[in-house]
């Protein structure tokens, strides 16, 4: 539901969006399509967003890929781990307008990892 709302909104702002339904699928999509940026939720089937982020960083080809964690969960441990793994930002979905999200994405793509 949220993912499709984000897809609608972000497509409107000119982004091309691919949605993965779980952590494993996300890794496959990332390796195959090489997106400019990845938005990861924390709670996902099979692999958490933090685990996906760790796997991304283990792949030498993906080490500089900008990643934003976008979740409604804000456990301090997760936030700290995401920072360690070089996430560009850890954003709380509910506190974020679409406009804010677009600004974060543009900033992350411009500045890179």
């Amino acid at each position, binding site marked *: 539901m949220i993912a499709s709302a984000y897809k609608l909104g972000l497509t409107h702002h000119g982004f091309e969006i691919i949605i993965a339904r779980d952590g494993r699928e996300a890794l496959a999509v990332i390796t195959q399509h090489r997106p400019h940026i990845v938005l990861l939720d924390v709670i996902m089937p099979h692999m958490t967003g933090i685990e996906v982020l760790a796997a991304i960083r283990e792949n030498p080809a993906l080490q500089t890929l900008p990643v934003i964690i976008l979740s*409604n969960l804000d456990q301090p441990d997760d936030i700290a781990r995401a920072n360690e793994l070089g996430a560009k930002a850890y954003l709380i979905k509910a506190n974020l307008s679409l406009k804010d999200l677009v600004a974060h994405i543009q900033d992350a793509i411009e500045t890179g990892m």
Partner: protein
Amino acid sequence: MTTRVPGNNSKATEQAPPPANRPPETGTISLEEAEELAHIGSWQWDAASGDITWSDELYRIYGLRPGKKALDYGSFMQLIHPEDRDKINKLIDEAYRSKRPFGFEHRIILPDKKIRTLGGQCKVVTDDAGNVIRVLGTSQDITERKKSDQALYRSNERFQAVLAATNDLVYDLDLPSGTIWFNDVLSREYKYPKQEAPHPRGWRVSHIHSDDKMRIKRSLDALLRSDDMTWVEEYTFLKYDGTPVDIRDRAFVLRDIEARPIRVIGSMLDITRQKELERAKDRFISLVSHQLRTPLTSMRLLAEMLAAGQAEPITPSQQEYVQKIESSTKRMIELVNEILNVSNIESGQLHLRLVQTDINSLIQGQIDEVTPLTAENNIRIVYEQLANIPPVDVDPILFRQIVHNLLTNAIRYTAAEQTIVQVKFQRTDKEYMLTVSDKGIGIPEEAWPHIFTSFYRANNAVKTHGDGTGLGLYLAKLILDLTGGKIWFESEEGKGSTFYVSLPHGGMRHAQDNTLAAVGGT
């Protein structure tokens, strides 16, 4: 009553005792004087005649005037407490039979009917054939000693009963001997093998869970170095089989006259159940709040997109409705965030992230964010900022929350059109001070003591604005209390309110002795 006239009258093996009134030798005192000083009386009972001779002091002990005439056994018995007469008879029978010295204790009734307790020692004198010729003895009033013995006995009995009745693990750490004693709860509830000897001093700490051990060790060391008399800590203690038990340990320190600690006596209360409930409550709040955020996010996003005409162009009245949906959704998200924040801080999960922050831009940012709320009443926010303040060490998220709560309150409770909300940031000699003043409905005096209480809302606030949560000021105070700041207010009903927030020049910091410090320190 037993007859006390032995038939044999043969020659004594011992000389008769010297008369009590023998003249004193130089430098000594007479026996009589000694008796009087020590309040010890003496007596002797002559087996042949059955007569009992008393010393003057013994007469005084019985409350009688000293007399020279010997008492007969029957008159003597009249002075003894009726319940103890039988006991005396048996004692004398036994003395006759065994001829050994014995101690005794009995009650007497004084002429004024008062009851006293006497105690003493007797000796049986026999002739060569082993016949009793005389019994000698001393008596003294032991009433007061008996009373204090009984009081001590009762107090000890009460203490033993309390130790047996309680489920608290009670300990007595004796520093000079380096040992620690526990009550039976150690074996009864914690299943450690029973042992008579006390444990070595460090035994208790060595059975604390490794996560807490160093913290408790440091805290105990600090206690012993301090002048404190009491100590309270919570930690996890391990049963004999390794099962963890949540403990609240309250101790009292006994010190010598130079205030050096000599004993630490404490009780360890099992609070496992309470901790489980707290954790369950925290998990529940966290789960519900996070679950609420998800649908709210969708509502917020879709309303924003609708309002932006992203689906397809909408009419002005549709626009107005959608904007109301959007702002209500934001309000609900804010409420969920506040509940989560309060829950996190109350459960000690707040992690202070201090960042050197440009306070002016933080405050300005918050003013910009709440400005849309001022449109309805045409309220103007005037920010009197302090030029050239160096960055202040604060947790920007928490400080923003405080500023946000004060601003939204000021706007929400300003009823009149076209008034001003004044925001000021100053630096005084002692601290930084943020002031937010409004000309709103004010706080009625009866609400003053409750204004920082969670879920409290003043009557006039409830009537004019149903949507406040009653958490904003509580949260602000909670954060400031834990980070070394202060918050207070001045208000007059109908005229407006001014809220003050002060922070030390050093900015926010972990306050001592609170949940934040506990989280930050371990």
